[in-house]
């Protein structure tokens, strides 16, 4: 599976199948009365075709190495989702602090003092947004 072109082909085929099979559940209609399923079905068929071409070509072309570093993307996503969840259930100040502390694990160095400073700065910015621009932020 360590072949970029192969993975790309599989990825495209997977997306086209996901959308294409789902669109079969909607009324297709006829060309004179197109239903909601017709257009997505046409587009996913085209995408499936491109995916298959990519797959076939990957058998002949050179293999390209693919590298994933799941740690960083996971940390970034975790801090985004954490921010949203905490802001929804607690308040946004806690969300900001969580996001700064969580995401900076992905950085090159980790410093609690710096994180506190960044959080304080961002909270100040958030207050400015709320008070000066009238953004509706659930800060507290």
């Amino acid at each position, binding site marked *: 599976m360590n072949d970029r072109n192969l993975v790309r082909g599989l990825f495209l085929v997977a997306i086209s199948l996901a959308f294409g099979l789902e669109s079969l559940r909607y009324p297709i209609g006829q060309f004179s009365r*197109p239903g909601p399923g017709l257009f997505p079905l046409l587009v996913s068929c085209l995408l499936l075709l491109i995916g298959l071409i990519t797959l076939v070509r990957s058998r002949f072309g050179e293999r390209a190495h693919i590298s994933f570093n799941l740690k960083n993307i996971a940390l970034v996503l975790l801090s985004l989702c954490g921010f949203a969840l905490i802001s929804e259930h607690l308040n946004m100040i806690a969300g900001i602090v969580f996001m700064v502390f969580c995401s900076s694990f992905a950085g090159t*160095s980790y410093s609690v003092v710096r994180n506190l400073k960044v959080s304080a700065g961002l909270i100040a910015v958030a207050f400015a947004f709320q008070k000066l621009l009238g953004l509706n932020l659930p800060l507290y």
Partner: protein
Amino acid sequence: MEVLHNLAFGFEHALTLQNLMFCAIGCTVGTLVGLLPGLGPLATISLLLPLTYSLPTGGALIMLSGIYYGAQYGDSVSAITMKIPHASSIVACIDGYQMTLNGKTGLALFTAGISSFVGGTVAIVVLSFLAPTLGEVAFLFGPADYCALMLLGFVCVSFVTTGSLLNGMAMCLIGVLLGQIGTDVTSGMQRFTMDMVFLSDGVGLVSIALGCFGIAEITKNLDNRNERTPFNGKIKLMPTWAEFKRIIPSALRGSVVGSFLGILPGGGPVIAQFAAYAVDKRFSKYKHEMGSGAIEGVAGQAAADEAAARTSFIPLMSIGIPENAVMALMMAAFIIKGIQPGPNMIAGHPDLFWGLVASMWVGNCFLLILNVPLVRYWLSVFKIPYSVLFPSILFFCCIGTYSVNNNLDDIFITAVFGFTGYMFMRLDLDAAPLLLGFILGPMLEENFRRALLLSRGQFTAFFTRPISGTLLGLIGIFIVWQVAAFSLQARNKTAHS
């Protein structure tokens, strides 16, 4: 001559001290808010709309349009320096960000500023000469014609993508499919929503743009561990004469493309910038540099963006149809002030119409004056170490996503697209065509189905109408040309080896 008389009349209104002040305030505030990564023109105008409630009508409209242009320019700054785009600055991410990586941020920002000025000026000429009649062009376009126009837009994919054509096409199709998520306009059916309520309104363009560009870019920088070195050298702002000579033709091309596309409903800045980029990649003398930080890649799209932003006022003011969300908001502002935009506006409120046109140009001058000296302050972003910068960028991405609908659920969507964008990047798939597909897809579907309904399923309708027939013919010629060029290239290669 009548036009000159009208323009003079307009300047008389725009150049009163009070209106000048409103214009200056609008541009400044708009730029400042637009600069914040994640807040685009739409968010900025909706945030600042209440500011204008208490102003006199003329001043309020002048200030709002100032906010609009300011926000648009500010947007391109965050796209060029940090690759965090908004709808109107997606293309600036391609060459603009490359220029930043090459250490030419100052030049890129200056180019964007001066090209916007050129684009705005050309658009104002178009606006004042043609606004009274041009609005009617939009009436000539039927569903089949729009369909053909959208397809022509897809041809742009082959230019916008930096990688292989096949991958660009794939990404564009994925974009079209993503645009299908939500409620079907024709039948009211929920599609691809997986029974989640917050998806019934579709996925926001902002979520996709911030996820695929902003979040993915942050993660890539973190993966590479390349702490961007704080920038302390002297900032080169002014272009050399040779560079300047490259900006102008490209900016002019972009202005013409932008002015035209801005008039068509559903067109507007977003599509105009892609089209201008495509035109530059085909006709520029330096087309081989496009994608790796060419000045033309910034100049053309900035001019088109600005020109389209202005000419998109034409359908609003001449026939009363807002062609995109920003214009709908402007229309709301008109109505709040008791003015019904439409055919009677030019005749009924000539002072407002021509005053607005004139103030657009004044606003342009303000933007230029404001931004050229301030570019070095925008650049101070680079003096912040990345370990401080990236949590802040994440925060701004969150706020930007949230502020569109005041909905925290949108942040989850951004996160999903952050991951998808990361996958795309690792798989060598380019995200710009995806956004093009996402923007054009829903319009293409709507008009495709409408055209088929009207013609009772006859595909000949697409070829027999004069406008759509011509456009489809152009697409055909273009494809033949591309294929011929491609096979010629391949033959040359084999001959060489």
